[in-house]
């Protein structure tokens, strides 16, 4: 069940109404049932997977606290983490591992007929496994256990965050379940606002940009260097609107029940450096990686080179978390390299004594923002391309852009030739607007009119969004396309 589907349009209000008419003691069980209905609407059998993992973690994690020695505790938590990772590995990385093995054997001239593993990746597994690991490690670090199986089950399966996060922290989420909240209209107002904004980002912005992105990444040979930069910028915004839109809908849905889940994005494209970018992009994942991978490996406490090693490994594994394919790994490695280079660059600036001067310079700041954005866009090419061949093909063309711009004419822009869909030439108008909008929203964030707009403006914006979303709602019904001549 997607957030943008008719099913969800029926599901969410139904659960919302039932939730608030139920007595408080039945609300959490109701949400738990709804969450399992939500998950199993995709593939019922995988309800057993999430239930099994939930029960397993709930029963095993207390054994950490019961271990007699520190070593015993470490072994226990390592076992639980390993069990969770193995489950994730089987479902997500088995086919990738087999493919890598076959490719490696091919390099040595060893012919091997690899088995075809018909493993369907369960939706959201990367998210709830990370939540289980987080719980186990926090209990090891001395945080209290969750006593209620129902509360714990809801923590893992909560339907707004089940499929695409944000990755929750149990100490933030579970205490909310025991508060007998009274219904407030602000839950509806804030929740609906977020849901409408999220749908707008996903359906209007993200899905329309996707048309140009799809064509460019599938057929890079049909486009010039400048075209490919524009298409890559479009992808940067497409992935942002898709993901942040989905997060907004998740947060809005949770708010309808009075629950707060973490924000995941904070204007990532105005980041002044790559480190700043990772404080603004998929925040729940980057903090998870920091707390449960980077810091346990030693973080920055064991010397410079070990710090760089830890950063590199964290980002590489973070890349692989996004998908079981080489280009995701390369994307992660790319960001790892950028983070290391950024650290080195900071050191050089400090040695030269220019760090303070640079930081206070607005020109330097905005130049950094532009450079960072372009580095991130280069990374996105790896992320989006179906394979490394396409990524290299695109990047090698894109790096010729400075040369092509020296004798630039409109004829070089193939996107101007394409008039249907109109998104292609419209990129030249839409992309600058989107880039500037990030700066404008950052400026508005401190303004009271943006934080608490007048009620008439709130109503007007919501009505406009409802109209636009109704008109542009996708027709997701299955189609019968017989044939084309």
């Amino acid at each position, binding site marked *: 069940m997607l957030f943008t589907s*008719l*099913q969800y349009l*029926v599901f969410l209000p139904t659960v919302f109404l039932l939730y608030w008419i139920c007595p408080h003691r039945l609300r959490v069980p109701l949400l738990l049932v709804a969450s399992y209905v939500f998950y199993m609407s995709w593939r019922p059998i995988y309800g057993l997977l999430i239930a099994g993992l939930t029960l397993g973690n709930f029963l095993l994690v207390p054994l950490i606290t019961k271990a007699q020695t520190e070593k015993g505790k470490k072994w226990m938590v390592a076992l639980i983490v390993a069990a969770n990772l193995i489950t994730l590995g089987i479902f997500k990385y088995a086919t990738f591992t087999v493919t890598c093995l076959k490719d490696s054997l091919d390099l040595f001239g060893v012919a091997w007929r690899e088995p075809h593993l018909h493993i369907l990746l369960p939706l959201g597994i990367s998210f709830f496994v990370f939540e289980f690991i987080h719980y186990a490690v926090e209990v090891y670090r001395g945080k209290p256990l969750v006593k209620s199986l129902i509360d714990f089950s809801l923590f893992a399966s909560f339907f707004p965050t089940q499929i695409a996060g944000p990755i929750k922290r149990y100490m933030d989420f579970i205490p909310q379940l025991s508060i007998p909240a009274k219904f407030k*209209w602000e839950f*509806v*107002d804030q*929740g*609906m*606002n977020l849901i409408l904004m999220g749908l707008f980002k996903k359906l209007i912005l993200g899905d329309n940009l996707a*048309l140009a992105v*799809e*064509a460019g990444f*599938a*057929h890079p040979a*049909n486009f010039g260097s400048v075209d490919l930069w524009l298409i890559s910028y479009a992808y940067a915004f497409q992935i942002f609107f898709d993901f942040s839109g989905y997060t907004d809908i998740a947060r809005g849905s949770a708010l309808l029940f009075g629950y707060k889940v973490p924000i995941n994005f904070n204007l990532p494209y105005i980041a002044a450096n790559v480190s700043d970018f990772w404080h603004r992009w998929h925040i729940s994942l980057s903090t998870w990686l920091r707390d449960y991978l980077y810091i346990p490996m030693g973080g920055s406490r064991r010397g410079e080179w070990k710090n760089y090693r830890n950063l590199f490994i964290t980002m590489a594994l973070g890349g692989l978390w996004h998908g079981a394919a080489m280009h995701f790994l390369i994307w992660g490695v790319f960001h790892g390299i950028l983070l290391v280079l950024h650290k080195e660059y900071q050191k050089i600036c400090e040695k030269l004594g220019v760090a303070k001067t640079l930081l206070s310079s607005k020109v330097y700041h905005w130049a950094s923002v532009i450079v960072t954005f372009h580095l991130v866009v280069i990374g996105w090419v790896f992320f989006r391309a179906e394979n490394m061949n396409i990524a290299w093909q695109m990047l090698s063309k894109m790096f010729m852009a400075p040369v092509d711009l020296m004798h630039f*004419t*409109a*004829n070089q*822009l193939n996107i*101007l*030739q*394409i*008039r*249907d*869909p*109109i998104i292609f*030439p*419209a990129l*030249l*108008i839409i992309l600058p607007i989107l880039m500037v909008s990030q700066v404008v929203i950052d400026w508005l964030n401190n303004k009271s009119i943006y934080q608490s707009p*007048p*009620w008439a403006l*709130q*109503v007007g914006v*919501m*009505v406009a969004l*409802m*109209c636009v979303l*109704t*008109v*542009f*709602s996708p027709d997701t*019904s*299955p*189609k*019968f*396309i*017989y*044939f*084309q*001549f």
Partner: protein
Amino acid sequence: MCESTPSEMASCAQSSGCPLTRLLTGSTAVLALLVFLAINFYAATKNTQVGNNKLDKSWVGWAVNDFITSAERPNVVFLGSSLMLVPLSGNDANYLHKKLDGSKHHHAQYFQDVLKKRTGYLASAYTFALPGEMPSDAFMLTNFLLKDEKQPDVIVYGVGPRDFMDNLLPSPSATDPFRVLSQLGSIDDYASLFLPDWQARLDYELGKVFYFYKDREKITGALFTQANNYINKILPAPGGGKFSIFDRRQLLPAYHPAELEIGEAFFRPETAADKKRGIYDNLAEYRKRYKELKWDTFLTQMQFFANFLDTAKKRGIHVVVMAMPITEVNRSLLSDRAWNIYMHSVKALAQAKGASYINLHDSGAFQVTDFMDTVHLSPDGGKKMLDYLVETIRSDSKTLSYLNQNKQIETTTLAQTAKRKGNSL
């Protein structure tokens, strides 16, 4: 005294204790929803028209638009899937010695000429055969279009087993003809047949309640046209634009797949090289279509077939049902049971509803060399089919009697009606 902002009104309302007042004024979201509903209701009651009545550029869009705007009343209308379309139009290309644009060629020219030659009857024959047309689509075409001053005398409907048993059909509402034709009339009486799935039904009912939802295709079409005009002015295509529909299909194959542009699809005269090539093997496609027979699809499409026959009969239109020939190798994909049920059901229903029935498949008139693939007749096979049809009509007094009905409707009246409705592409 209640103040002016919703939050102030809310505290006032809450103190007043009235739940309805609290509901209406306590929430900007609820207020927004009410305003949104009011706008939809207002737009619906005013019958607000956005854009124009242009049907979109698709096989069915072109065929319907040509039919509506034509001043002529066809005596004979052909219905059917590509099993009918390909031999009809392919044979016309051979007969006329020129390539024919699929978006524009909707008359069965060879049939008209041979009917006149063999029977003396002057007839205008319109082709409403469309790729993938199901009996549910044929019913909608008949119900919404073949009536009043455009009512034909005879419908010739060529059917094949795929029409009733296509495993790839999600539901009757998934076809492109449904998408276009449902704009021309109400399907309320048949909603449960067209929309068996609850989500499709909800989608349909939402369209009845929310104006913006119902007409969203028209609205988005109008908006994109405006956006196109604006962008074409400020960012014209250098060199006038060389990007064709074929280029677009290479880049974005899944974008508007049912769209058909003028000059995109042609029926062309068959060459010696075409004949030498032999028949194309499309069995893999038909294995998917027949592989797991969905009996609910079969029964639903049979119901629509019956509805189509009833509608035609009520209006006084005579129907000639033709069981189209297919190759034995394609026939063998179906179990004997499925084949027999299909053949007997079509024949029994046709005859029960007063239609004429021609079994071309068992006529012995067609060999494998008459086919271009395992189901579609070649242009020469199409000629054979039409010759057989005309010969059958010649000896069918019932069909002849319908053709002989002197429904004289002034051409000028038709032209005036078309002009009044203002439909054009």
